[in-house]
């Protein structure tokens, strides 16, 4: 698949989303993003790429955190850099994990929503709505220091959506979440990006199939370049023929391995005793991800973490760019 420049012709459409026009960003000698032209419209758009591909740079650019060295970015017809009016429309869920540990989840969301100018009453109302939306109502009175990784992701998501943004940027929102939480957040993102909501969601991940469950529209970046832009089905057809590696962490890893190896989609399972994880090679990821929760529920096995190995995504991109198969 070739990199596609998304250059909508009519001005009206450009002013209803974010438009990156020949944007480049470099840090000294290092290129962060190279000559990217893209349009992010309504609904959910996935931003896919391995670590170091330029995803975070792109998100920082479109959220107005940094300026492009070349090209320009407009959102709804206005510049994004240092523009408070634009920030009013933006919801941003950054990747970091450390937050204000001493605050409760509610105080955290309430504090940040008030930075948009809401008073006490309105701020509290909006904060509770957002907390309710991400399913954290019961835990909102606890201090963030006591939250699990998944809870932190949700409360971060709550602060991003609390002020009713027009466009939402979610940087790796599924990192560290458990499978059930993952499903809930994916559903929530889909709901947020629903056509009825009228908002744009750009969600980044280096896990292809997570993105695929949220949207069919993706931007794929690799080594600072926009590699592909378009429908996921087209890309997936090619990827299904390519083996993927996963790491699964579970207290009952050996029992889980027994069930995994019997799945037709699994080509190999290796117990990594050093890191206490299972390393699993799969084909047809779609089938695998739909079957896995059922097996876990039936056999009452809990897993702590499910992750895609970076090098495999690198391999996918190498494959997409015609550089050969995986490692």
């Amino acid at each position, binding site marked *: 698949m070739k990199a596609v420049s998304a250059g909508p012709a009519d001005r009206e459409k450009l002013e209803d989303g974010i438009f990156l026009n020949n944007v480049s960003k470099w840090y000294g000698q290092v290129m962060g993003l190279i000559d990217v032209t893209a349009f992010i419209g309504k609904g959910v758009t996935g931003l896919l790429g391995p670590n170091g591909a330029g995803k975070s740079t792109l998100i920082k650019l479109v959220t107005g955190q940094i300026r492009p060295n070349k090209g320009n970015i407009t959102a709804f017809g206005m510049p994004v850099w240092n523009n408070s009016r634009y920030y009013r429309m933006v919801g941003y869920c950054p990747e970091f994990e450390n937050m204000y540990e001493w605050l409760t989840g509610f105080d955290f969301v309430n504090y940040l929503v008030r930075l948009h*100018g809401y008073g006490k009453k309105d701020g509290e109302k909006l904060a509770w709505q957002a907390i309710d939306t991400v399913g954290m109502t019961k835990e909102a009175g606890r201090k963030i220091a006591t939250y699990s990784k998944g809870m932190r992701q949700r409360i971060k998501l709550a602060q991003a959506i609390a002020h009713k943004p027009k466009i939402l940027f979610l940087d790796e929102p599924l990192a560290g979440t458990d499978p059930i939480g993952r499903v809930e957040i994916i559903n929530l993102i889909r709901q947020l990006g629903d056509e009825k909501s009228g908002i744009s969601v750009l969600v980044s991940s280096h896990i292809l199939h997570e993105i695929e469950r949220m949207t069919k529209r993706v931007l794929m970046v690799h080594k600072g370049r926009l590699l592909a832009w378009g429908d996921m089905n087209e890309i997936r057809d090619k990827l299904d023929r390519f083996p993927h590696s996963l790491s699964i962490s579970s207290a009952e890893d050996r029992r889980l391995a027994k069930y995994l190896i019997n799945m037709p989609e699994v080509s190999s399972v290796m117990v990594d005793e050093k890191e206490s994880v299972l390393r699993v090679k799969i084909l047809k990821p779609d089938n695998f991800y739909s079957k896995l929760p059922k097996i876990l529920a039936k056999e009452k096995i809990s897993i702590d973490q499910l992750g895609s190995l970076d090098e495999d995504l690198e391999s996918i991109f190498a494959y997409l760019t015609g550089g050969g198969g995986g490692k």
Partner: protein
Amino acid sequence: MPIEKGGYRAWKGKTRGLTHRIFSIANCELRYRLKRPAIIVVLAILGLYTVTTGLIPILGNLIGGENMFVNDPNLYFNPYQVPDIVVTGVSISNTSDTLEHIEPGLELFELGLEPGQTAVYQLEITNAGTRSGSFKLMLGGNSGTNAWIIRLLEGSIPLDKRSENPPDAAVDYNGTRTRQSDGKRQLPGDSTEINGDNKYGNLVLDLDSGSSKTISIKVSLVEDTVTFDTLALSLSVSNNNDNDWFVGEEDIATQFKTKVRLDLFTKITWPATSLKSFMKVELTGVKDSSGTWSGDRIKNIYHAPPEVRWEDTVEFTFRITNADDQTVYVKRLHDPDSDYYRIQLDDEFGGSNTTYGDSNEEEPKEIKSDESETFTVIVNPYIEFKPGKSYLQLIFMASENEGSFDQDIIQSSQKGGGGGMNLNFTSVPYMVISYTQPVDDWTAEYFFNTFYTGGINIWVILLAVLGGSGLIADDRANKTLPLYYSKAIPKYGYLAGKFLGLAALIGLVTVVWSNLWVAIIMLVGGFSWQFFTSHAWIMGAFTLYGLIITFFMSALVLGASSLAKNRYVVGASVFALFLITAIMGGIISAVTREYNYLMLSPSANFIFIGTALFDLGTPEVDWGYALMTLGGIFIFFIGVLYWQLVKREVSIE
């Protein structure tokens, strides 16, 4: 909760302006900091310190009434002025009366003695100082008649030490052989007797530090009715062999009131080292354009260090520069008015010599145009009459020729004094009260020095460091800056919110509490409303000074916080800045004898500004320059903040 129908943008709530958003940040930061244990501890210490040092006098004032501390000699503690007198026993023969019947503090009082009766007073005198000294007992009185006799009982006084000039010619003290007033020879061990009108007798005791001697005094009445104008047993002290007597005296009638003091004398000592001060006096401009010499054109009023004590040696260094275009002659006139300092001159003007207050002119020194001469004066203050009232004067005289001199005066106007302290259960609160008393004419100095020790209280620095080190450093370390920078608040709004949060924390102490503290002392401490209104300007000074500290410290700590990702590094850096600049400024200033280098230290600049603001005298460095220096540092750190957080793309990190 489901997404609202009709779009997620359905919210129609009103939003508020930038100020509200800035205050939201400030409010969150302040509230969090006020819950942190370390900050609570610092605030508690600050509060406790200022309350104990500042409000204790209130208790005394509430008990004793207005100006109690100023007027009550028993609470005005100065061991050099009032050697401790302990009445170990009192008996009056032929009468049941006791000394408790004597009304204290009256000029006229009745002894309550019948003719022929005798009262015996037994006193113990203790040298509470660190040096050996001589104590002179002056006995006497003025009754208008010759109808009484005071007699020191035999054996109580060593007779080998007598006053050199006994006032009563009839009493001839001569070594071990004396003659009594009746002309009879007095033998060793005999008593000394003084009688008659306006008669006084002096006796001298040598006492080593910490030692005591007991004496007995017998007063007999020989006529029917006697009313005393005064009956005094005065004690004078000297700390030198020349018996330069300290003039202070205590009326024994007043001292009897304190007979319950059973002190265990424990001496608290302080370093008897030389307090070396590097102070420069530029006697430039001694001559104006008209060529007339004038004594009042010298603007350098030189301050002696405060708390000059008996044991201290203070060394002053002066430099005189001839700003004229021709050679002048300069000489000094030493200490013409003070009896309370010994000045030792040790310089190229004529070697070492000592003066005790007499005029002592020197040979003039020739100074060519634009040249300078430096010299040193060593001062041993040995007795103070009263703390706060002593002056050290050095008079400089200059002339175009060696014959005609005009005077320029440099004098100290700083309080001196102090003395040994007796430590025991009763004297500790006594000491605290006496050292914290808001003495009338040092009010501003008292308030300033009590609240801001060293120009900027160490606890205020600690509070700023604890409250501000992590303000930006933590956001940088945790990468939470994008949380703010993606909100509808400009970057400088974030900066202002953080600044305001820290400033509010510091201001709680430097502005709010300081003013409250002053107001409480003034209003509750037994002072009059007139006192409050006439000294209300002090609160204005506290407010202004507090704001200067608040803004400076907020910019400094916040700026440092933006330069690092570790709050501990930030805190250590701020402390290091204060410490290193103070040391550097002190050393360079000492070596070059140039005060201006002290401005390297923010603490010193605060002292200079505080000295001017609270009207404590003329600071060593012009307060305007000090303020400009602090302002420069303030602007520098604001620039750092602007660059680090507004201009730069911080999310690149």
